[in-house]
């Protein structure tokens, strides 16, 4: 049994904690989104929605809580998609040749990088939940402590699975590319539709038909379904839309993420197997 992936992981974490500026900014960025975009939009939306009738007995949540779940997903998406850049730098100027010429299997390289990416996403997700609660997002409102912990763990499971999928995608593209600029271009291009064709900031029910279908199958939407289910609840009103998730819906979303991640792993594995770096 070889633990090559732990070595890769160890080294990646050294780098993560070494660059204090990068570390702090990567943790601060989602908080700033929440603080500025979140509060600004919430104050508007909540005013607009004030006149709307919510059926008696239904649970209405504020916009900050609603989009806070989306911000967790957004941060995970960005971090995961851009994490491949390390591979590219390693390939051109760093340790990739040493690693590829070593006895460590190539799947260990992928797994090691994925593990460190997931760790980073977990740290960010926890910080956003904490910060969100601090500025007034009603995550886990009224839950007993044990249920809060269970909720957090379930959210991390969703976040981890989603992060893995996009990490694999990012790694597959990175190992096939020559320049960091090219990678950055592709990733920026991808983030747009994935982020905006999802239910991160608004409901997708009122989208035009094609966009709505696209959004429903977007892994981002599946992740956010999971986060909202566990952070807010199975049945709530937000932005005038009624959200009702059954356990089956959520299980299906998770399975969708698993499927996505498996496909991305195969893609990454295939690209790494044929990768030649000299």
């Amino acid at each position, binding site marked *: 049994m070889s633990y090559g992936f732990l070595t890769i992981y160890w080294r990646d974490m050294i780098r993560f904690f070494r660059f204090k500026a990068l570390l702090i900014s990567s943790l601060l960025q989602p908080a700033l989104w929440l603080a500025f975009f979140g509060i600004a939009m919430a104050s508007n939306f909540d005013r607009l929605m004030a006149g709307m009738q919510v059926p008696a007995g239904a649970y209405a949540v504020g916009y900050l809580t609603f989009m806070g779940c989306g911000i967790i997903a957004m941060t995970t998406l960005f971090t995961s998609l851009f994490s491949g850049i390390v591979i590219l730098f*390693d390939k051109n100027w760093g340790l990739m040749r*040493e690693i590829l010429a070593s*006895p460590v299997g190539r799947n260990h390289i992928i797994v090691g990088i994925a593990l460190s990416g997931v760790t980073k996403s977990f740290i960010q997700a926890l910080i956003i939940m904490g910060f969100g609660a601090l500025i007034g997002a009603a995550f886990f409102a009224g839950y007993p402590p044990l249920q809060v912990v269970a909720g957090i763990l379930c959210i991390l499971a969703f976040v981890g699975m989603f992060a893995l999928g996009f990490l694999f995608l990012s790694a597959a593209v990175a190992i096939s590319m020559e320049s960091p600029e090219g990678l950055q271009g592709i990733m920026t291009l991808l983030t747009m539709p994935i982020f905006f064709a999802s239910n991160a900031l608004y409901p997708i029910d009122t989208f035009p038909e094609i966009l709505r279908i696209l959004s429903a199958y977007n892994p981002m939407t599946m992740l956010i379904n999971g986060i909202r289910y566990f952070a807010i609840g199975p049945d709530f009103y937000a932005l005038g839309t009624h959200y009702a998730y059954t356990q089956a819906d959520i299980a299906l979303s998770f399975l969708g993420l698993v499927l996505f991640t498996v496909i991305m792993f195969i893609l990454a594995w295939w690209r790494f197997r044929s990768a030649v770096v000299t």
Partner: protein
Amino acid sequence: MEQPVSAGNDPVIRVENLEHAYGDFKAVDGISFLVQRGEIFSFLGPNGAGKSTAINVLITLLGLQKGRAIIAGHDVTTEAQKVRESIGIVFQDITLDRDMTVWEILEFHGRLYDMPVKQRRDRIEELLKLVQLDGKRNELTKKLSGGMKRRLEIARGLMTRPEVLFLDEPTIGLDPQTRMRMWEYIKGVNREGTTIFLTTHYMDEADQLSDRISIIDHGKIVITGTSWELKNTLGRDLIYLETSDNASAQRLLRSIPAVREIKEKSEGIVLMVNEDGTKVLPGIIDTLRGEGIVITTINLKKPTMDDVFVFYTGKEIRDEGQAPARGGFMRARGR
């Protein structure tokens, strides 16, 4: 291919008819050679001769296309994993993480190769002393000088006590003083029992560092031997002449028994002589004077690695910048 064997007959590297092509271009075109246990063996050739391609196949970074290569008893095709475990590599370009410390670079390598903790830590201490970097252990590699980086890479290559250490252009881009010290380190490592395979396009590096040299050009090995053997193929001495009539001089001098071969240069001729040049020279001068040919330049010297290289490849090495000092012979041509 037949070749002189100076070390014992215990080859650590055995390569037979190795070929490697990129599309239609054959970078390595059917090379065969043996490297004996304990020697320092060099590939000497210009940039683009196929040295790096060959080394990349041997270290399993490039797949083997044609031929056979056995490293430390393992076939690079069927036992790549075993090959990887028994070699150390110093790549042509610096391959260090700028943001890791000297100690971390070595620790990372030890972990990659699954070395037990105790062994790993002991080796790191030992090697840091060997390459004189123990004072720099907590320094980020971006703060090291070029020579220190190279030394760190050599230390890394030695972490697993490999049977063979591959060095791809180990002193490229280093200043002359640092290069000399690098050679001392490499010789020291070799004395401890590690076989060294290196590629270089520096004449003096091949000449002074290696036990045996293969001159490689256009993907083929042109000749293999010790530095002494290679120089001897050009005769004992070289005499360079510029005269009023080079063509006639060449014809006349062919009849002198001590003259083995004559090569034409742009402004003169080079005689390779089998005997002591100082004894042959008066006879040459007399012969030319007797025919009324005026000698304008004479130069006598021992063959150098440059001469060997020019003779076998038909060209001077294409070097950009930082060329090592050449013998006075070549300069004489320009006067």
